[in-house]
């Protein structure tokens, strides 16, 4: 059993009313897997294009097939960059 902490921000936080989740899974999973689990547990997220959002693991941007280990912190990063 491994535990992964999920951090939510901005419009994701507004929509779900949550700042954090904890995923408990049997074995190491990829970022894609984690996103699928998160979307299943928070159906309201279908209102956002989560699949286009970048993801950071332990504060580093990673790709969708990055493997998550016990104790990892995954953050879903909505688009940034307002203002010229």
């Amino acid at each position: 059993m491994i535990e992964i902490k999920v951090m939510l921000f901005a419009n994701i936080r507004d929509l779900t009313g949550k700042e954090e989740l904890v995923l408990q899974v049997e074995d190491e999973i990829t970022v894609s897997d984690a996103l699928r689990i998160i979307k299943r547990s928070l159906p309201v997220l279908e209102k956002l294009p989560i699949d286009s959002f970048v993801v950071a693991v332990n504060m580093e941007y990673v790709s969708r097939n990055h493997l998550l280990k016990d104790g990892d912190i995954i953050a879903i990063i909505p688009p940034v960059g307002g203002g010229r």
Partner: protein
Amino acid sequence: MIEITESPISIERVIESVRDSGCGAILVFIGTVRDMSDDKKVLYLQYEAYREMAEKLLSKLSEDAKQRFGVKHISIAHRTGKVYPGEVSVAIAVSSPHRKEAYEASRYLIESLKKETPIWKKEFREEGGEWISTG
């Protein structure tokens, strides 16, 4: 100095932190909240950051800019929470022996900050709030 803070930004402190009598040029970028957005009156902005990661990325970005442009010191301060029109949301100071490098590094820093740093802003107008991005 890299700082993501709920408190008002002191421009003086940001500038002081890059002063160096070996540097002839200091360039300071100050981003302030505008009172209008798309012709609508802005009440305030709400900034939210993934603080630890933002600080880590901005530190890395600073090191990167120092190497790339040969500037000497860099300080970045970014507000979080409610920021009202006219208030400072971000300040970036760069000091360098010569000015050309300071301009290049400063521009690079603000563009990279806006693009890559996990800091979000929600704009509150009279009719409600909206998360803003150019992404």
